[in-house]
Every structure is written in structure tokens, then in C-alpha cells.
């Protein structure tokens, strides 16, 4: 049976386990209809021109894992940013793992989507924010239809959250191929500040497909710092849909580090619904083998005096393919917009390829919008310089590549993440040069 049909018929089984009388369920029912009409995206769609899901969708994924799998902290510790104290929301095969997690209701809510959806005290927030900015395309609708579990974070006014929040999705895949659909909601009220780290980690060789939707609301003067670490196994694929709605003077930053996974697709959408706000998205992609990473970004400038910055670096080895499709839309009212977009790529092997499409759609005249994109190789003369000073070729190459991606790392605010990323980069490049890159 086709995956699409299977999912549609599973929806009935899903209905048995959720409260069908809640208003949320109307949203789900509408979403499954949407998915039925739209289906999975194909290469015929402009936004998916360079990414085919065929290879990923051919597996017979189980939609509801039957067993709960327990994990020991010591076995998975390495996937945590364990050097610092964090709030933790941990899922194993889509189920909440209470003994790995550390949630809170003290002033702030760092807990589960399932309880947020069912408990009356969260109703107002859910009514105001749930599924308000997620798009109605096939893939997001599919997530909405099956939305039940995920992280729920609500930071009320004037709170500086001291500890970062880690969200990790483990998959043990004990039962074979597995489809996970986490649904996250992050609401940050006026003047508050939060840092979030998200990771998807497969612990199996069985195919795993994650279709995640995260809605983030940064209200007035809020600061949201979001880090996505994608360093999964070669059998795991991820479709990440993140939607960020910003109010005036807020700052939202998303860093995406893509180092692994069979297929990774990042749909990152910023909607600027307020004046004088700032959106930043940065990414480093270093992949090899037959991996495929697709960054699809959208910044929608709706109001005046806003800024957006995009900076994506990519290094592609072996038969890896990279895609960057960045879109900046500036509406008529969004005068004095300052939008900047850069995408730099290095191809290392003959079989690697990169498709990039930095797009501008501008309807306002008093704006400063620019984009730049380059594809090239490492500078031969710089290589020569390093080698003439006794640095072996591999290390010299690694140094240059590190320098190439460094300005993305520069804006990472949590030092432990920076260290972790540099270690991953060093291991990706297969070097150990005696100091932390």
C-alpha cells in the first residue's frame, strides 16, 4: 500500500486515541483532507524541484510504535549538550521519556504538547497560537493531522530563561521503519528570552523518517535563539518545518547545522508581523556520501523598518547534493527593509553537486536588498601558503574549510554548542590538529 493511503487510513485508528470533541480535532480533520488533496510533494512542484522524496517514501513506515523503548542516560549522553545545565524534553520513538527529561512549570512552561492540548489551563494559548502560522501544504498538513505530541514551551512576559532548553528525539527503530511526527509550539511573550536546542537522533540502521513542525511566536521585544543540530545516521531522514512569527522589535535567530542524515529538508519560514524587528538564519552544511541537504528559507517582510540576515555555508564531498532555495519577499508596506542573503558553497568531489536559487520578490521601493551566492573551490594559493609552512594537506584543507564556515559559528551564543560543533566539523573533515578547531 502506498504510504499516503496508509497514512490516511491510519488516521481513523489515530482518532480512537485522541479527544475527537476538542476544537483541535477539527483542525486535524481539515488537515488530513488537505493532505489527501495535496499528497506528498513531488519534483514537479517548484519548491521541491531539486529534492525528491521518492527514495524516502518507499519504505513501509509504521506510524504508531507499539512498544515503549527505554534508554539509559549513559548510552545516549553523548547526544546531549551535557556540559551545561538544561531543561530537557526527550522523546524516544515519539513517546515522552520522563526519566531522561527535565521539565518545569515554575514560572515558565516547558512541557509536553499532549498535556497542553488536553489540559484546560493551556486552552487559551493553544486557541491563540496552535496551527496559526503553519502552512497548509501537504507535508505540514500531514503533521497537523497527526499532531499529538511534541514540545510545548511558553515563556510569559519579562522572563529571562536561565538554562537552555534541549529537545531531543531519539528513535530506536526496534520495529523496523518508523515515521515520527513531532509537533512543537514555542510562545515567547514580551521582553522574554529563551534559547532552544533541537536534535533528532536515530540509534538504528532501520529507516527513520521524521516530519516535524515547529511553530514559534516571538512577541514584542522577545528574543528567541534556536539551534538545530542535524547529525543523524545515513538511514534517517528529516523534513523539518519551522514557522516563526515575529512581533515588533523582537529578535529571532535560527542556526542550522546539517552534518548528516540521508535526506534533510529544512523549511524555515519567517513572518515579520511588526516593525523594527530582526530575523537571522544561518547554517553550516558539511556532507558527503550520498547525503542530500535542502535548505528552503522564506522571509516575509510585511512591515517597515525590519531586517533579515541569511548566511548559509555548504561543503559537499563524495556524491552529496546540496540545495539552497532562499526567498525574500518584501511587501509594498515594508519600506526601509534591509534584507541580506548569502550562500557560499564549496564542492570537493567530482560527483558532488549544488543547486542554489536565491530569490528576491520586492514590491517596495525604499529598500536595501541584496543577495550573493558563490560556488567554488579552496584557494590554491592559500593551500600552498599553509603547506609551505609544514602543515599537511589534509589539515591545511580542514583549516581553510573551518575558516570558510567560521562566521556562522561566530554568532552562536552558547560556547558549549560552539565547541560541540567544531568537534563535529573536525571529525567530519577527519582531522585532529591538536586544538579545538
Amino acid at each position, binding site marked *: 500500500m502506498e504510504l499516503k493511503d496508509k497514512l490516511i487510513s491510519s488516521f481513523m485508528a489515530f482518532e480512537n486515541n485522541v479527544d475527537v470533541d476538542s476544537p483541535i480535532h477539527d483542525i486535524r480533520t481539515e488537515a488530513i483532507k488537505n493532505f489527501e488533496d495535496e499528497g506528498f510533494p513531488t519534483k514537479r512542484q517548484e519548491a521541491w524541484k531539486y529534492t525528491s522524496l521518492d527514495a524516502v517514501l518507499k519504505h513501509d513506515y509504521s506510524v504508531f510504535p507499539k512498544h515503549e523503548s527505554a534508554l539509559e542516560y549513559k548510552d545516549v549522553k553523548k547526544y546531549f549538550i551535557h556540559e551545561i545545565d538544561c531543561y530537557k524534553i526527550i522523546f524516544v520513538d515519539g513517546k515522552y521519556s520522563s526519566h531522561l527529561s527535565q521539565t518545569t512549570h515554575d514560572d515558565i512552561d516547558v512541557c509536553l504538547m499532549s498535556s497542553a492540548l488536553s489540559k484546560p489551563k493551556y486552552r487559551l494559548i493553544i486557541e491563540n497560537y496552535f496551527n496559526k502560522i503553519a502552512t497548509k501544504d501537504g507535508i505540514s498538513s500531514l503533521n497537523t493531522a497527526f499532531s499529538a505530541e511534541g514540545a510545548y514551551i511558553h515563556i510569559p512576559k519579562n522572563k529571562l530563561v536561565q538554562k537552555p532548553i534541549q529537545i531531543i528525539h531519539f528513535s530506536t527503530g526496534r520495529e523496523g521503519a518508523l515515521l515520527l511526527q513531532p509537533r512543537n509550539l514555542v510562545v515567547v511573550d514580551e521582553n522574554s528570552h529563551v534559547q532552544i536546542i533541537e536534535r533528532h537522533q536515530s540509534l538504528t540502521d532501520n529507516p527513520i523518517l521524521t516530519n516535524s513542525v515547529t511553530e514559534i511566536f516571538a512577541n514584542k521585544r522577545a528574543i528567541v535563539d534556536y539551534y538545530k543540530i542535524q547529525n543523524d545516521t545515513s538511514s534517517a531522514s528529516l523534513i523539518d518545518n519551522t514557522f516563526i512569527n515575529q512581533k515588533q522589535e523582537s529578535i529571532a535567530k535560527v542556526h542550522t547545522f546539517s552534518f548528516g542524515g540521508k535526506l534533510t529538508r529544512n523549511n524555515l519560514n519567517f513572518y515579520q508581523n511588526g516593525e523594527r524587528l530582526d530575523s537571522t538564519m544561518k547554517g553550516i552544511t558539511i556532507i558527503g556520501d550520498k547525503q542530500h541537504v535542502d535548505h528552503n528559507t522564506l522571509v516575509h517582510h510585511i512591515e517597515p523598518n525590519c531586517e533579515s540576515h541569511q548566511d548559509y555555508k555548504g561543503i559537499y564531498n563524495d556524491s552529496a547534493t546540496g540545495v539552497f532555495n532562499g526567498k525574500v519577499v518584501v511587501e509594498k508596506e515594508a519600506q526601509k527593509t534591509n534584507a541580506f542573503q548569502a550562500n557560499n558553497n564549496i564542492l*570537493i568531489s567530482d560527483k558532488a553537486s549544488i543547486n*542554489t*536559487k536565491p530569490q528576491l520578490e520586492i514590491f517596495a521601493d525604499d529598500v536595501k536588498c541584496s*543577495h*550573493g551566492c558563490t560556488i*567554488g*573551490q579552496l584557494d590554491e594559493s592559500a593551500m600552498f601558503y599553509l603547506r609551505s609552512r609544514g602543515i599537511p594537506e589534509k589539515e591545511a584543507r580542514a583549516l581553510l574549510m573551518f575558516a570558510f564556515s567560521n562566521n556562522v559559528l561566530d554568532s552562536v551564543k552558547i560556547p558549549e554548542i560552539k565547541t560541540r560543533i567544531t568537534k563535529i566539523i573536525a571529525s567530519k573533515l577527519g582531522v585532529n590538529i591538536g586544538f579545538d578547531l
Partner: protein
Amino acid sequence: MSKYTEDDLREELKTKEYEYGFYTDIESETFPNGLNEDIVRAISKKKEEPEWMTEWRLEAFKVWKQMTEPDWPNVHYEKPDFQAISYYSAPNSKPKYESLDEVDPELLATFEKLGISLDEQKKLTGVAMDVVVDSVSVATTFKKTLAEKGIIFMSISEAIQKHPELVKKYIGTVVPQKDNFYAALNSAVFSDGSFCYIPKGVRCPMELSTYFRINQAGTGQFERTLVIADQGSYVSYLEGCTAPSRDENQLHAAVVELIALDDAEIKYSTVQNWYPGNAEGKGGVYNFVTKRGLCEKNAKISWTQVETGSAVTWKYPSCVLKGDNSVGEFYSIAVTNNFQQADTGTKMIHLGNNTKSTIISKGISAGKSQNSYRGLVQISPRAKNARNFSQCDSLLMGNECGAHTFPYIEANNKSAQIEHEATTSKIGEDQIFYCNQRGIDTEKAIALIVNGFSKEVLNKLPMEFAVEAQKLLEISLEGSVG
């Protein structure tokens, strides 16, 4: 003198009427509306074409019937009814002329109004004109001089008669019949166009030029141009268009094929000023053109275009860089005003080693127009050391227009070096202030800035054409081009 501001300019742009809108009353021979196999056959018969050409057209027609119009461009318009168009129209005075005296005086007057008096052109510019009015060549000059060099420059229908071997060998090799909807349509029904062949090692001594005009109400214009530069030759080809005012939309679906064999160079310049519709967005020409060039070893093709007209433009002059060390260039200025929509750009397909391409695109949007750049740079896995530089700049005048950029970059070889940059801006108040401060009034300042903005492209136009280009630019941006 009252201050001339950007607002004034905008106002002036809005109300500026199409100056060259007039209609010459030449009795034309027109086919009934509609398109079917019989019409295709009839066109072919009318032109006394050989059997293979008729078959070629029919093949294209068969493919066309199964195709649908593309809807991916960033333009919105009422789809033309292809059965409501007459597919053939030719001026009645059929015989060819050797000298100007024989030409229909009314036609000559038309050219006079356009400012392209043949006498003047002949004497002053040394340009040989293959003048096309409604699809059939009526005057070809300088033919004899060209003939001495062995250069063939004639209408394509004449070429089909006189040089069938060349036409048969090259037609459809760069733009195949089934390439796209409009190319297929053109292949089936093309009425006329120009044919040019430069023999081995010959440097064409003058700029070759063709004027296109749409002249007959309700007549689609389907031009077909084929330029072949044999090994080591050089040619510079100019194409310019103006069209009279019309209320109903007119369709123009041309195909241009360029073939540059080893070491050859083709420079193809276009000034396009089809009727853009009036200030309310009524009327205007639909311009759906397929232009493509093929470069063999060490060859070079350079496209330069100044686009000021058409209600809807859909045009992507492209280069297939097949041979090693071949070079492709694209320089474009696209000006849109009122309700004009332009979706234009280029494709650079790098197939050979050490191939180089340059793209410079300048878009100026005013009024309620939409101006899009859409380009593709593709590096095939076997193309080593390919190099591309692209730059797309947009200038916006007023907050009701839009500027869009859709660059596609596909690199499949690690040795490729690609740079792309794009900017969008308006004329800065500080720039105007700087000029004012130095005693340059605002009108001149705007002229200066717009001129400077498009200079990189204007510079690429041949001398003889630059004047014409300026003149045509003025229609869209009067008061801003000094």
C-alpha cells in the same frame, strides 16, 4: 523653474503616450483566423516551400497540439485564443526591390516616422537593412556588397528556396520544434524572418540589421531567424522593433537560433519596443520569444538587449556552451512601466571545458509594472573549469511596482567557479542631493543616475545602434535619459 522631482518623473512616465503608435494602411493579404493542419500546409504552399519544410512544420504542429502553455513565468495575462488569430499576413506589393525607388512610398513613409529612413541608414551608418513589415521581407540593401564576401543575408523563405542545404542542416538544431509551446507554434506557422550565413574566416564588414513591425490588426507575428557563423567568422546582428497602437493584444512568438562554429563570434543586439499597452494596461503586445545560441569550440555568443516595450515579455536569450573554451555573454536592460510585465533573463548551459559566461541584467520598474529576472546557470558534470559571473540589479521607481529575481544555479562539477549577486534599490535621495549640490538639476540628476545604472549594458551596443537604443529608451523613461 519648478523643482523636478522623482514624483514628477513618475507622473510623466505614467502619462507618457506611445509616440510611435500609428497604423500604415497597406493592403494586406490575410489568412482566415484559426490554426489547423490545412492552415499550416497553406502557409507552406504560399511560400512555395519544398516538401521537407512542409513536413517539418507539420511535425511541429503535431507536437504543439499536445502541449500546454507554460504558466510558470511570473506574469499574469489573459491567455490568447490561438484559434482567433490569423497566421499569415503579407504586404500585397509582393515583388522584391533592388533599389529604394521601387518600394511602396507609403511603406517608406512608415520608416520615415520611425526615424529609420533607408537612405539615411545606407549613407550614414553602413547598415544593411532587411526590413520586415508584417512578416515578409520587402527591402534588402547592401546585398551586393555582402555577396562579394560570400555572406548570405536574406529572408528565411528566400533562403529555403536558394540555400535549402544550409537551412535543412541547421534549422531546429538549437531550438528543436518541441522545445516549448511557443517554439513549437512558431515552427509550425512561422511566416518569415531572416537568414544569415557567414562563410569561413570572413569578418562581416557591417552590422546586419532587421526591423520588425507588427502592422496588421489581429495578426500574430511569427518570425524565425537563423544566423550561422562558420569557422573563424564574425558577425554583429541587430534587431529592433516598434509596433503601432492597438487595443487588442497581439501575439508575437519568435524563434532565434544562432550557431557559432569553431572560433566564430556572433554578437546579437536587440532593441525591443513593442506597444506596451496604454496607461490603464489595456492592449499591448505579448512577446513570447525563444532565443538560443550554440557555441562550438572557442566560439563566442553575446546577447545584448534593451527591452522597453510589450505588455507581457517572456524571453530568455540563452547560450549552450558546447565547445571547449567557448564564451557566452548576456547584457540586458529591461524597463517596465504602467502595467507592463516582464519575465526575462538567460540560460547559460556549460557543457565544454573552460567555458565562461557573464550575465549583467539591469531591471528598471516604474508605475504598476512587474519586472522579473529569471536565469539559469548550469554546469554539467563534465564541464571542467567553468566560470560564471552574474549580476542582476533592479531599480524601483514608486511603491506600486515590483522587482523579482529568480536565479537558478546548478553546479555539478567541483572545478566550477560561480558568482552571483543581486541588488535592489531606488534612486537615493543622497545621490540626488549630491548632484543638486553641484548644480545639476533633479531632472538631469535622475537622467544621470539611470544612465549610469544601465551604462554597462548600453556600452555593449554597437555604435550605430546606441543612438536608436537611447531613442527607444526615452519613450519609457523620458526625462531620465539625457
